[in-house]
């Protein structure tokens, strides 16, 4: 326990990418097809670039304070009261995000997998597992992600590769589109999926090489971004843009239609769904962990495990709030909007404060 800096760059990258790959993969192609028809992969790609920029803004700031997390050094930059307010807003954001993500998971699970299991049971179990693992420290947290990532990425890539053979290239043309309002909306929605890369702020104080924080995130965003773009290519290419818009979970349909040879290896959706459950778990785990960490920070609690346990009923209640699947998706979009504003606005504010302070220091010396 003497050496706190145990998280390697690769492991940090694993945490970020397994966090990013989550509940959103199932419905992602539909949003992209709605925004840009056959240009959906291009929009997804632009979304990746956007989130890359916003990540750079955050990570390069955090790299300047390698010993502290964002919530600690923000107090020095903008003063304790303002920093507390922002931390509280981020806390609320992540608590809601955890709740709604779990809800989306429950919706899929009860529709497709367990028709008789009450949605409360699936949601509660998912939250319970996340709670139990959130009680561990950040190093174990990173190990868990590192362990699951190859499973998640491997099987998703396998499903995509099998589906790619039924892709009709005509469905993907024209590739480019002019930057209309829809294009930017689509790209913005795509970048929402990458917001959980925020977790890097927690990891930096424990990283072996904090200077590599940006590199870790870049690696993670490129990898998960490639997977998201490939998923859009595979499902829009397979179904066509119009059909993709009709499906609630195009990626799931894609896995359901994929087959090796004729009747030799069919029904890959079973494997896909199992892996998807794990990928949801890693996502919920991260947002849960961030919430617990922030809560401990904000209320100066003695340890994080208590904060995590206190959050469970709150998050469970939030998950049960949306009355139906459409509301849940509407909420997640609003949350994305709020998150976008916060994830870009807050680092910007801190950057400005940082420059002002540095200028002030130089002037005084």
């Amino acid at each position, binding site marked *: 326990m003497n050496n706190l800096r145990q998280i390697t760059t690769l492991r940090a990258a694993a945490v970020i990418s397994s966090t990013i790959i989550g509940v959103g993969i199932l419905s992602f192609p539909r949003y992209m097809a709605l925004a840009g028809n056959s240009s959906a992969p291009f929009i997804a790609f632009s979304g990746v670039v956007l989130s890359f920029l916003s990540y750079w803004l955050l990570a390069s700031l955090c790299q300047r304070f390698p010993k502290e997390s964002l919530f600690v050094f923000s107090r020095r930059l903008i003063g304790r009261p303002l920093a507390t307010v922002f931390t509280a807003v981020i806390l609320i954001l992540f608590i809601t995000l955890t709740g709604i993500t779990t809800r989306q998971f429950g919706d899929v699970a009860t529709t497709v997998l367990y028709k008789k299991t009450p949605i409360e049971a699936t949601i509660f179990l998912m939250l319970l597992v996340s709670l139990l693992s959130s009680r561990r420290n950040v190093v174990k947290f990173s190990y868990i992600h590192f362990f699951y990532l190859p499973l998640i990425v491997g099987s998703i890539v396998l499903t995509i590769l099998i589906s790619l053979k039924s892709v009709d290239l*005509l469905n993907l043309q024209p590739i480019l589109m002019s930057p209309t309002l829809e294009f930017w909306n689509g790209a913005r929605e795509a970048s929402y999926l990458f917001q959980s890369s925020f977790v890097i702020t927690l990891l930096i104080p424990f990283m072996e090489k904090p200077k590599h924080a940006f590199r870790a995130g870049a690696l993670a965003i490129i990898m998960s971004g490639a997977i998201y773009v490939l998923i859009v290519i595979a499902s829009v290419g397979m179904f066509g843009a119009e059909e993709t818009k009709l499906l609630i979970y195009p990626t799931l349909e894609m896995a359901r239609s994929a*087959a090796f040879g004729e009747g030799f290896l069919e029904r890959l959706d079973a494997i896909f769904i199992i892996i998807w459950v794990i990928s949801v778990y890693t996502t919920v785990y991260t947002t849960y962990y961030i919430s617990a960490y922030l809560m401990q920070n904000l209320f100066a609690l003695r340890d994080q495990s208590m904060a995590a346990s206190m959050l469970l009923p709150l998050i469970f209640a939030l998950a049960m709030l949306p009355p139906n699947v459409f509301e849940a998706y509407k909420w997640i979009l609003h949350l994305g909007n709020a998150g976008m504003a916060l994830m870009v606005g807050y680092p910007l504010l801190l950057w400005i404060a940082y420059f002002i302070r540095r200028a002030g220091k130089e002037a005084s010396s």
Partner: protein
Amino acid sequence: MTRRLPRSLALILMLAMAAPVLSGCWDQVEIEDRALVLGLSIDKVSAKEAEKGDEVTHIHDDHLPAEMISVTAQIAVPGRVPLGPGSGGGNPGDDKTSPVWVVSVRGISLDDAMNNLQQQIADPRYLVHLRIIIISEDIARGNLEELNDYLRRNPEIRRRTWLLVSEGKASDFMDVNPPLQRVPTLYILSMMEKSVSSGKFPRDYIGTFWSADTKWGQSAYLPYVALRNRDNILIKGLAYFSGGRMVNKTDPIEIGGFMALKGIDPGGYSTLFHTNKMGIVMTKINERFTRTRSYIKDGKPFLSYQVFLEADLDEHYGSNIPVDSSAKLQEIERDFEEQVRSILTGLVKQTQKDHSDIFGMGEMIRSHHPAYWKEHIHDKDDWESLYSSTEVDIQMKLHIRRVGLKDQ
């Protein structure tokens, strides 16, 4: 020690609580308790016969459509479905030993009919193993919206299910008794799958049908099947759609023409034709390759197809001139090209008359000429009417590679 005791007690309690969770699935249903539906057939019921509904899902309501459908389901009887050739299973004609149970119900919609079905059988029905749905031509010519909605919405239905259009009553297909397979639907399934692998039919699952149906620049088509001699199933052509309804069907040889135009491999159709000088010749197509180009000419879409075929000479009779030189083969090739080209042009003309772009020419225009598309096409109907006046140019090239074991 005194401090340890409560902790280990708590641990034991927790483990005891975890035990029931580990015991299994919440909604497990044993396979013997499931009614697995393997195949469905859907027919229209004439308004006169439709008087009496079972009213399982509704009380008499004038706002609901008066027309009814009759659904026949083939349900697998647990324990009697043979696992391999010759292993158990009974005689399908005999009700007591047949591996499937054929149940017929009526309803206003497919879902209504499935609920009526559930009301009549004990075990919960499962559609997870549904592989074949046969609809009668009447249904296909009517509105498929309800059917598509239910099948798309239901998570048990897979996109790799076959949807077939039948000549005459669809329910007759549920009673066929083929000697090659014990379960009739599995026979129909393997027939369709094998016709795909031998180049007799394009891979046209219900998912493919849906995708084509939603695309603006393409019209959907389905296999059109007919019964011969009560037990034989004939793939009789393509049933093609326009505006979501079946409008017409092709001849079997035109399936080959369609596949040639789309360049779908492997080739599977043989053509019997009369040559100018060398009597009657039959060629079997082995490979198809098609190059397609699209242009906008004078504000109208224009498509050119170059079809390359590779074939065997299968049969030659009715003339004294032997086929023994490449010049003669070329002559046969030329005659073939001319005649098959007229089949293809005829097929295109026919679908143009019916406003059904089964070739997906509109998709080609959409992806290669997006500006033109955006200006002229605002929904699927726009393209289906523009398709009729689209100019199509077809070039054929046949290459005979083998002539068999006979010299001359």
